[in-house]
């Protein structure tokens, strides 16, 4: 068991580690000197420096604050609206056109508007992240409600469950695995959009740190931040997958293969 896990880890690491080592070798052996590239060893020391001088912690904190608030607001509203249009055909008909017109707007296209309303800072970024995460939550919640096993709805009618307890005891738990998928997708989108905001206009967080490194011609530091953002994305996704499997593994209607 432990050996199999070690082997799996080895396999997963083999490709990226080889690429990094080859890259480092190429960089040193050919004596590169560049304003855009840096060897992994330099990126690593730049990373340690960013940890030591506190920039990494500050920037990560700022990005996370926007990411989590935006996700909470956008996800919460998306969940609530998804429940409404999932349950009510009438609400679905009434909102269909508005949704299909607003949904294709790239969240970055809202930056000028957000900037005019809120100015620089947390609020504009939270607004854009909330907008971006609202849609996956809305769509996935709606389809989760629609796809609740019809037999279970019949069971709740036969047993005479009141609407509120039918929602709490049948619909929500039946939809839970799909809602969890919405959370996982939404979190990934939130990270991308938060960093994009910071790169494009908001002078704070990881995206801004990335831009600052580029503008001050410190490629090693830029690569360090880039790697850190990737690591955050990976960690978020893996933790949510673990949580998902832990919550639903015993359920017959949960397909564990989607979460591997």
């Amino acid at each position: 068991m432990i050996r199999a896990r070690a082997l799996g880890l080895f396999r997963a690491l083999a490709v990226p580690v080889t690429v990094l080592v080859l890259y480092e070798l190429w960089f040193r052996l050919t004596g590169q000197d560049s304003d855009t590239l840096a060897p992994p060893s330099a990126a690593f020391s730049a990373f340690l420096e960013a940890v030591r001088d506190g920039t990494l912690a500050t920037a990560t904190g700022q990005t996370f604050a926007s990411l989590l608030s935006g996700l909470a607001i956008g996800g919460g509203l998306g969940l609530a609206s998804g429940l409404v249009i999932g349950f009510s055909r009438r609400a679905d008909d009434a909102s269909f056109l508005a949704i299909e017109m607003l949904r294709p707007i790239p969240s970055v296209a809202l930056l000028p508007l957000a900037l005019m309303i809120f100015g620089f800072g947390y609020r504009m970024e939270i607004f854009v992240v909330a907008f971006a995460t609202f849609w996956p939550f809305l769509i996935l919640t709606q389809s989760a409600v629609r796809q609740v096993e019809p037999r279970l709805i019949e069971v709740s009618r036969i047993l005479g469950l009141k609407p509120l307890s039918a929602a709490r005891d049948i619909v929500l738990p039946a939809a839970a695995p799909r809602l969890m998928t919405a959370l996982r997708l939404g979190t990934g989108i939130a990270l991308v959009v938060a960093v994009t905001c910071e790169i494009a206009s908001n002078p704070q967080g990881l995206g801004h740190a990335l831009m600052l490194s580029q503008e001050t011609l410190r490629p090693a530091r830029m690569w360090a931040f880039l790697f850190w953002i990737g690591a955050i994305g990976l960690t978020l996704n893996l933790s949510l997958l673990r949580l998902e499997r832990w919550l639903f593994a015993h359920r017959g209607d949960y397909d564990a293969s989607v979460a591997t």
Partner: protein
Amino acid sequence: MTTATATRPAAVSIELDDVSITLGGRPILEKISLAVPAGEFLSIIGASGSGKTTLLRLIAGLWQPTAGAVRVAGSLVAAPSRDVAIVFQDYGRALLPWRTAAGNVSLALEAMGVPKSERADRIHALLTKVGLGSHAEKYPTQLSGGMQQRLQIARALAQGASILLMDEPFGALDALTRQALQDELLLLAADTKATIVFITHDLEEALYLGDRIVALGSNPGRVITDVPVALPRPRHQLATREHPNFVALRRQLFDVIEGLHA
């Protein structure tokens, strides 16, 4: 149309009066009239397409007839009521996969507003009754098909209904499990004195369990035969199936059902 009539004998549990239903422009059931006395075990057989399941849904109040009246205990059925329980064929879909066996039975008690302090004892008694006493904490997927169907029966019993509707409940089970569950069901029926409407496409099963058999013809579904089953109770897997009446009825109904396919 009048609803309840005091003159109607209280002994009639379910009454269908010229019931027809059309779904999507297609007639499914046509002018079905049927009276089921309280405490009777009625077996309904019929080929696929004969609307057996639709008939059950009408009695349960899940669907409404296009014409005619469905009455339970003398009152028109307008919506599902707790006095009518149903056991579905597809146990894998009818059970809550996120609740344990105990939790699934508990759902019925919660719906009835049974206080939490009383639930544990009643759940235990019900699970023991269907032979799942030691599996209370297992999830449906950890149970075999036969056990899942027992669990569904326990949940239906928890409702305390006087009418139990069963839609091909043992259709997906292997022969041995099926026989065991047939005998357990007969014991439960004698114990609860409930009126049971049991749907099956298996003629022998219908005969073995029922006090009476109704055969439905297809397209649209209508009653073509309605015969009492004169077989002594308690039934016995070997003796009953070898009883001359069993053999004769099997013969008679077999010809009727064969005729439908011709």
